[in-house]
């Protein structure tokens, strides 16, 4: 089955659909038009450039270049996740880099060596494509996870300190917040997993089917990728939280207030963390 290619003109016609959000924005005074065109333009330019880049990446299929590109992808994902949290980039960017890298590499290597398996485990088609899917989901999970974890403790300072005063270890005092953050971080992925195929045909499956593959093969890959996404997301969220603790908490177990971008939090006025 051949995939019907889209001409530049056809692709241009797609953008006519944007007339709908533009009209709705005007009718309801949403003020979305500027950001809509900015985002659409950015997406188009980025995808065109990445399309050209990927074409060569697949053509060369060099292990070193593929790995380097995956590291670039990790860096971009890490910066996006950290930037969206309330915590200062400098405090958590390095632990986040390690947590994303460990989660992504561990799961991809398991898929490439054990599940699929392929001869060249650094093959661009698998390393880059799978890496992108895992990182996209880890990114979403970590944005929720990091923000929930640190904001909840900041908002709950009195209770957190009370628990410490009861003789709790740092781990015991943090555990309820760790649990809640992981649960919230995984919720969207688990919900997507549960409705997969019924509510939506996911991106990878659509891509593979449009690409001419048998739907049966597409479904098998989709199951594989969903399990991998859940696993890499939970690994990265847990590692991110655990690995950022030393930078964000004092050795007395108190959350440092200088880790937050917004310094006007309640605790800043009341307490000075060690």
């Amino acid at each position: 089955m051949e995939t019907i290619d889209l001409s530049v003109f056809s692709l241009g016609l797609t953008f006519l659909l944007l007339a709908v959000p533009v009209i709705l924005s005007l009718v309801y005074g949403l003020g979305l038009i500027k950001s809509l065109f900015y985002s659409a333009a950015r997406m188009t330019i980025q995808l065109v450039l990445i399309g050209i880049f990927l074409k060569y990446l697949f053509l060369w299929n060099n292990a070193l270049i593929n790995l380097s590109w995956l590291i670039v992808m990790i860096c971009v994902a890490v910066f996006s996740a950290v930037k969206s949290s309330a915590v200062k980039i400098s405090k958590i960017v390095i632990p986040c880099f390690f947590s994303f890298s460990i989660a992504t590499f561990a799961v991809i290597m398991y898929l490439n060596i054990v599940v699929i398996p392929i001869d060249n485990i650094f093959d661009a088609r698998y390393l880059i494509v799978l890496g992108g899917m895992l990182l996209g989901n880890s990114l979403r999970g970590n944005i929720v996870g990091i923000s929930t974890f640190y904001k909840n403790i900041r908002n709950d300072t009195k209770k957190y300190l009370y628990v410490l005063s009861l003789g709790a270890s740092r781990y015991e005092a943090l555990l309820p917040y760790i649990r809640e953050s992981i649960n919230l971080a995984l919720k969207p992925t688990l919900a997507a997993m549960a409705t997969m195929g019924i509510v939506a045909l996911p991106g990878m499956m659509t891509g593979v089917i449009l690409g001419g593959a048998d739907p049966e093969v597409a479904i098998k890959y989709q199951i594989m990728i969903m399990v991998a996404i859940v696993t890499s997301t939970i690994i990265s969220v847990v590692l991110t939280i655990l690995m950022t603790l030393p930078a964000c908490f004092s050795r007395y177990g108190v959350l440092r207030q200088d880790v937050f971008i917004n310094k006007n939090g309640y605790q800043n006025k009341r307490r000075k963390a060690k």
Partner: protein
Amino acid sequence: MIQFKNVDLSFNGKKIINNLSFEIKQGEKVVFSGKSGSGKSSVFNLLLGFTDPDSGKIIFKEKHVDEKSVWDVRKDVAYIDQDVSLGDGKVAELFNFVSGLKANALLDFNERKFDELLTYFELEKDIPDKDTGDLSGGERQRLSIVIAILLKRDIFFLDEVTSSLDGHLKQKVVDYFVAEKEWTCLVNSHDSIWLDSPGVKIFDLEEGKWRP
């Protein structure tokens, strides 16, 4: 047992505690007096490691309070804040959480003692089934006092723990702590019931010295 040696503490450039020195012996009941902002709560925050002094030494049971020893300090004292946050959920869940902490693993939260305390502090017997969010300020204060006593520790940091109670209940709380001769109690309070109680020493934080 507890010693402050020339402790200074400032926050946002404002001096909160200035060259504070005192010593408290085992079994003493000490009330810190002083107007709001004189650093009464900061004394507890310093002892519990929630705040760092600019200079000076804080000694607890012969040991300098630092990042290692502070974890033992927290196991040795029972701290009650005036506006203690008990979180969400049932009171029974809170008890399970507290008794589930490793530091409290050997404690026996036996029902007899618990019932005795509920009766004494005039709390309803079905309080374990209530949501902590539904408790009044006075009930929360008395419940946190019950939890603190059940921890079986002999050093108490009581930060305005009677502020939401009526005169009759304030007196009962003061009587309970003063009657326990072995207990060392550090108290922050504006209540005259504490200040006038026999056997209580008063340390004036504004003057930085004991009241005669």
